[in-house]
């Protein structure tokens, strides 16, 4: 799983820092005049910045103040004087101004090294390549900027579970806009169709979401793992296999060898979908009703034959493993030690997994070779399982004979004792 794109998010965790004003600051500053006045405001929109900045905020924790992003004179008690042009007061940055304000520090490698030396400093450059950045450059002010995802006041580290860009919160943050049909109205996909707003609903049905939320696998992909974060854009046609291949490396390698890689416009997505990727099953392969191959192939063509052959061999190994497992369980229940055979069956299951991977090259020959190796293992386990059951039978017969002999001796001894007493 690609975790590095998420690290890029980390690079933008500081929402608004002015390079010249703040680098010397290193300790949390006391409340300024800005906070005092804003804190007393009745209007929530005016009071919120002071309240949020006074709470957990990564910038405040490192000694940055309101002035570092907004300018102004915090020591001045008169509002007009505090916000006089001579103080450099900028007000509330919006649009390109947000990018400029944030990147003053976040694009300054020398400055960032003092606070977060591992952070990248190319977020602004990346952003300019994103759909968001390109739209903003065209004058579209509805698009996301730094603060849309990270927040402006109360900015938290990316690794903070309460951060809007924490891995578990990314889908919620992105779909705050992308699931809003009104907001997305007018935006189009490259093919001219309207930009859908059902990505989150679909994602929540996907195997990736299940892995993250139910399986607690924080490395499972969320929006930014496929689309990027600061450079967010849909993977272009031809890049999909590469994107999926960042995690599913072997599948991507096999797929690249296949004829399909030359034909499929949307590579992996053709069969697996994108946001709603379901748990893949063997039923996807073959020529029966549930199989996806029939979407393109017709009965009797080469693809259909290959799909049928691969599916039937996979089913054969599955049945063989299932049969062997039952046999081993039966022998184990009878008290036989079947540790080696259980281990061998795990290897057979590995061969099945390998065959399912190999299948992505859509060439029946290597798939068959792997499956035959698996069938060889199950045949050996079956033979040993049968031998174990025969051994159980032999032992029981042996016990019956021994018990019979023992009983005879006991009876003989009892009779002898009786005769002696008589």
């Amino acid at each position, binding site marked *: 799983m690609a975790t590095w794109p998420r690290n890029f998010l980390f690079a933008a965790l500081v929402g608004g820092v002015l390079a010249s004003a703040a680098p010397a600051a290193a300790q949390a500053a006391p409340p300024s005049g800005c906070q005092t006045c804003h804190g007393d405001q009745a209007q929530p929109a005016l009071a919120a910045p002071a309240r949020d900045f006074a709470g957990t905020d990564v910038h405040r924790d490192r000694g940055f103040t309101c002035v570092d992003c907004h300018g102004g004179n915090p020591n001045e008690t008169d509002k007009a004087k505090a916000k006089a042009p001579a103080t450099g007061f900028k007000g509330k940055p919006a649009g390109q101004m947000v990018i400029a304000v944030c990147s003053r520090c976040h694009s300054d490698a020398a400055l960032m090294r003092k606070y977060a030396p591992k952070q990248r400093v190319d977020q602004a450059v990346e952003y300019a390549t994103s759909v968001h950045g390109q739209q903003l450059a065209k004058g579209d002010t509805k698009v996301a900027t730094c603060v849309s995802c990270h927040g402006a006041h109360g900015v938290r580290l990316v690794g903070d579970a309460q951060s809007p860009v924490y891995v578990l919160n990314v889908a919620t943050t992105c779909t705050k806009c992308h699931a809003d049909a009104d907001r997305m109205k007018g935006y189009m996909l490259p093919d001219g169709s309207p930009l859908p707003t059902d990505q989150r609903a679909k994602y929540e049905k996907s195997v990736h979401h299940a892995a993250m939320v139910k399986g607690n696998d924080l490395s499972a992909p969320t929006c930014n793992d496929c689309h990027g974060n600061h450079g967010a854009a849909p993977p272009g046609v031809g890049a999909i296999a590469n994107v999926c291949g960042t995690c599913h490396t072997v599948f991507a390698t096999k797929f690249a060898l296949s004829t399909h890689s030359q034909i499929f416009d949307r590579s992996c997505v053709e069969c697996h979908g994108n946001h709603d990727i379901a748990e893949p099953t063997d039923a996807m392969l073959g020529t029966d009703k549930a199989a996806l191959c029939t979407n393109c192939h017709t009965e009797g063509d080469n693809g259909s034959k290959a799909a049928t052959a691969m599916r039937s061999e996979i089913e054969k190994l599955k049945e063989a493993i299932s049969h062997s497992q039952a046999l081993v369980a039966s022998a184990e229940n009878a008290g036989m030690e079947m540790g080696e055979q259980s281990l061998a069956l795990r290897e057979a299951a590995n061969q099945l997994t390998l065959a399912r991977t190999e299948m992505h090259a859509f060439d029946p020959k290597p798939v068959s070779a792997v499956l035959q190796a698996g069938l060889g293992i199950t045949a050996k386990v079956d033979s040993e399982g049968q031998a174990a059951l025969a051994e159980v039978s032999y*032992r029981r017969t042996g016990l019956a004979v021994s018990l019979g002999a023992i009983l005879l001796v006991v009876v003989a*001894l009892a009779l002898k004792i009786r005769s002696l007493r008589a």
Partner: protein
Amino acid sequence: MTEQLFAWLDERLDLSGLRAFVAEKTVPVHRHSVWYYMGGITLFLVGVQVATGILLLLYYRPSASEAYESVQFIVSQVEFGWLIRNLHSWSANLLILMAFVHLFSTFFLRAYRKPRELTWITGVLLLFIMMGFGFSGYLLPWNELAFFATKVGTGIAGALPFVGDFMVRFLRGGDDVTGATLTRFYGIHVAILPAMTTALLGTHLLLIQRQGMSVPPSVEKREKAGETIPQEPFFPNYVLHDVMWWYVALAVLAALALFLPWELGKKADAFAAVPAGIRPEWYFLAMFQTLKLIPSHVLGFEGEMLGVMGFNVAAVLLFLVPFLDRKNPDGRQNPFITFAGVVAVVYLIVFTIYGYLAA
């Protein structure tokens, strides 16, 4: 030829005297005679343990990296290895069960009365040694349950006042249960305890032969009243009877070994999570359950320490039974001793069952 050989040996070992002793030796016959055979069955099971133990030694490897695999090899690859290992495991449990039965039958029949105090003391010591065999042998397959049960079991020794920490380190061969504990337990199991058993069992049997069978107070009373208690020759009657019971024990053992094979389980992994249902072998379960029920602190003392000290006191009292039961030297029933015995039996049965159900 046989006679010549006997004459040759007799000249050197005075076998005639022994033969005369055996020929003249008799055993009393009464309605409690059946309890005499419990000791014989226990002795037979000791023999089974020695024989099967020696065979297991041929393949067992006492190290943390090889112990589990060697037992796996014994039960799956060695010809009749499964039988030997199952017999050893089942026989160990039956042995301790029969040792308890033998102890309590001796107790309730007051067989420890003068002059048999030493027979009683060696018997009690042998029971404790058998439990030591069980405790040390349980760890040897180096499986998960045994590993964690040993961790708990040896940890309990830490509750002893003053010597607790030393005892834990002494038993474990370090601060924790490791491969060092395994080799230590192996040494105890195959060398130290067998040597002690040989000496004590020899003394125990010698005392029995020397002093003859005790008769219960009720029978003794009849004897003193002038009634003649029937006797039967030790050889062949009693010996044949004993052998008959041995065969019955062998049949039970064989059936258990085949139909309820002793599970090997998973290999011990010190880093694995403690599996659910960790508990000691059944003969420690009553004590284990008692310790679990005692509050953490009682009257300012640590509850576990009080429990362990209580068991030690009980063990000392058990040794001293022949000397404590002196109120009725004429053999009349001492109601307190009988009551204490009944309480002990009920306690052991109830708490063992409770321990099983609680786990």
